[in-house]
Each structure stands twice: as C-alpha cells, then as structure tokens.
C-alpha cells in the first residue's frame, strides 16, 4: 500500500466544544476537498458521529478511520482507532458507562449533537462527554487493544491533557507504537531531552473543532505505520 495522507484528529458537533455546524458529513467532505486520502473522526469519549461519517466517506470516496479521543482518568487524551464503526461504537458504550454523571448544561458547555447522513439532528448526548472516564491511561489502552484497536497518545507535547503535561513525559506502565504531536519543534526538544521517545512514527493533525481547521494539518502514514493495519 502506498503512503496515505490524512487528518486523523477531527471533532464534530458531537463534541460540546466543537461548532454545531461541523457535522460529521461536513468534516468528512472538507477533508476530501482538501485532498486527504483518509480522515479520522475522533470526538471526545463517543463514537456516535461515526455512522454518519462512514456514510459520507463512502459517498465521497475517502477512507474513514473510526476513532474516539478518550479523556482518561489522569486527564490525558488518548486517540483510540478501530478497523470498523461497530467496534468503535461498542468501545464508546464502555466509555459512556465509565463517564461520571456530572451535571451538564448545554448552555455552558455546548451542545452534543448526534446527526445522521442527511445532517439531521437525531439526538443529543446527556452526560458531558469531555469529562474524564474512570479508566486509567493503561486500562484504556488495554481495552482498546483487546477490541483490535490502536491507542495513540494525542498531542503528547501539549500544555494540557497530554503525556508531557500530566505525566511529565512517556508513561512507565504502558507503551505505544506511535504518538501525535502538536508542536513538532517542541516535540523534537522533548525527544532530545529523553522525555518522549524517538524512533516512533509521529502524527500531526488539526484537532479541528471548527470547519476552517479541518485538514489544516495532516499526517503521512508511510510504509510500516501501524495504523495502516486498520485501513486494509
């Protein structure tokens, strides 16, 4: 398989912090227009935008990598990718059970819209999706792998919700085959300082929360990238 290019970290209107007009259909369509081969829709702790994203990806002729951005118990964000939407939905159900029922006011946090392939709103999620699940980073990675998925630390070098900010660097109790970085130059410094590991494939994605940002940054999945296994 030749190298694939794509934005592997995109939120939709399901995430309370993302714009309400960024439906999964819009997100996938914008990635296609930007020339991406593949797009990953990765909402906070939920897979419920993925069925519409999959329908759009099939219609537009772009690969969908189903994903979820989990907020683990330590408040570290972990991207979990799967080979198919149904598995991601089952993983999302387990996460929802592990989410605290924190009082949620859409006026404060933003709405959590479930939409279909026609961009119609079909529901809203009740629990706040940006909360931390009760599963630790290593427990989340283990659950993801047990379902055939690949866990990838999100924006590992960032100032919040990252391996670096929370754990001070790479975790000592769980390993990952690749990771996403937010600032490649800073990540390079952290690698030189021994706080993040070198020699692993790095992803750089948009982490888009609005339409303008979709596919503004893309990752290259070269030969041997572990994520290619999920796209075959």
């Amino acid at each position, binding site marked *: 398989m030749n190298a694939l290019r794509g934005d592997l970290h995109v939120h939709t209107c399901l995430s309370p912090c993302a714009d309400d007009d960024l439906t999964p259909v819009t997100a996938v369509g914008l990635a296609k227009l930007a020339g991406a081969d593949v797009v990953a829709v990765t909402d906070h702790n939920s897979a419920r935008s993925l069925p519409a994203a999959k329908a759009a990806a099939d219609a537009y002729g772009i690969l969908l990598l189903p994903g979820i951005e989990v907020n683990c118990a330590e408040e570290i964000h972990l991207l979990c990718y799967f080979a198919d939407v149904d598995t991601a939905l089952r993983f999302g159900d387990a996460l929802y059970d592990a989410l605290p029922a924190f009082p949620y006011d859409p006026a404060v946090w933003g709405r959590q819209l479930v939409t279909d392939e026609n961009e119609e709103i079909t529901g809203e999620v009740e629990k706040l999706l940006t909360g931390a699940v009760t599963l*630790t*980073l290593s427990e989340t990675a283990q659950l993801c792998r047990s379902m055939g998925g690949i866990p990838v630390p999100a924006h590992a070098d960032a100032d919040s919700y990252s391996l*670096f*900010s*929370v*754990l*001070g660097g790479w*975790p*000592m*109790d769980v390993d990952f085959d690749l990771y996403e970085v937010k600032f490649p130059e800073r990540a390079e410094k952290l690698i030189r300082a021994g706080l993040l590991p070198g020699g692993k494939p790095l992803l750089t994605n948009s982490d888009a929360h609005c339409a303008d940002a979709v596919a503004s940054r893309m990752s290259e999945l070269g030969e041997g990238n572990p994520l290619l296994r999920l796209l075959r």
Partner: protein
Amino acid sequence: MTTGELAAACGFTHAAGDGAREIEGIFTGDLLSWAMGRAKEGDAWFTVMGNVNTVAVAALADCACAVLCHGAQWDAEAVRKAGMQGVELYVTELPEFEASYLAAVTLELPPPSP
C-alpha cells in the same frame, strides 16, 4: 520531623518506604510537568496522581515522601517502583489542601510571605 512521625501525627496510611526520612518542606500539585523542577529535595508531596511516573519524579527530585490525597490509590506498579527506588508513599482520605495544611501545622512551617 521524619516521614513516619508526620504520618502518625496526621493519620496518613503507609504504602511504601521505611518512614525514616527527614521532611524539610511541602509541595502540592498534580501535573508532573509542573512538579518537575518545582518539587524540592526533602519535600512531602501532596497529590492525587497515583501513577508510577509520580514515583519517578519524586525520586528525581529526592522528595521525602509522596502522599496520595482524597482517598485515591497508588497503582501497584507505583508501589513496586517506590520500593525499588526508596521512595516513601502514603495515602489519606483528606483533600489536598487539608492534608497539606495539617502537615504544615504539624511541621510548624512558617507562613509564606505574600
């Protein structure tokens, strides 16, 4: 005052170490990127982060001990690593401020200047 004496006075539960370390100050905080370079030698460190990485940062900073607050539990790997690296660990049901405050009073630390 030693770690063991402070723990006895404050009701902290022992999780690892021999309790013989002398305490010189207190550090309170959870994000390890902030603790690195700020937690000092001889500090009793109050946190809710029970991950093994906390033990590594405490060892590097040469903290006197780390106290897990709010009834949080140390990971098994953290306890194992603490035994290997000679890091003392405790737990308490108290929130971080109350545990830190109680320790500061017990240690008779002077209030910081504004």
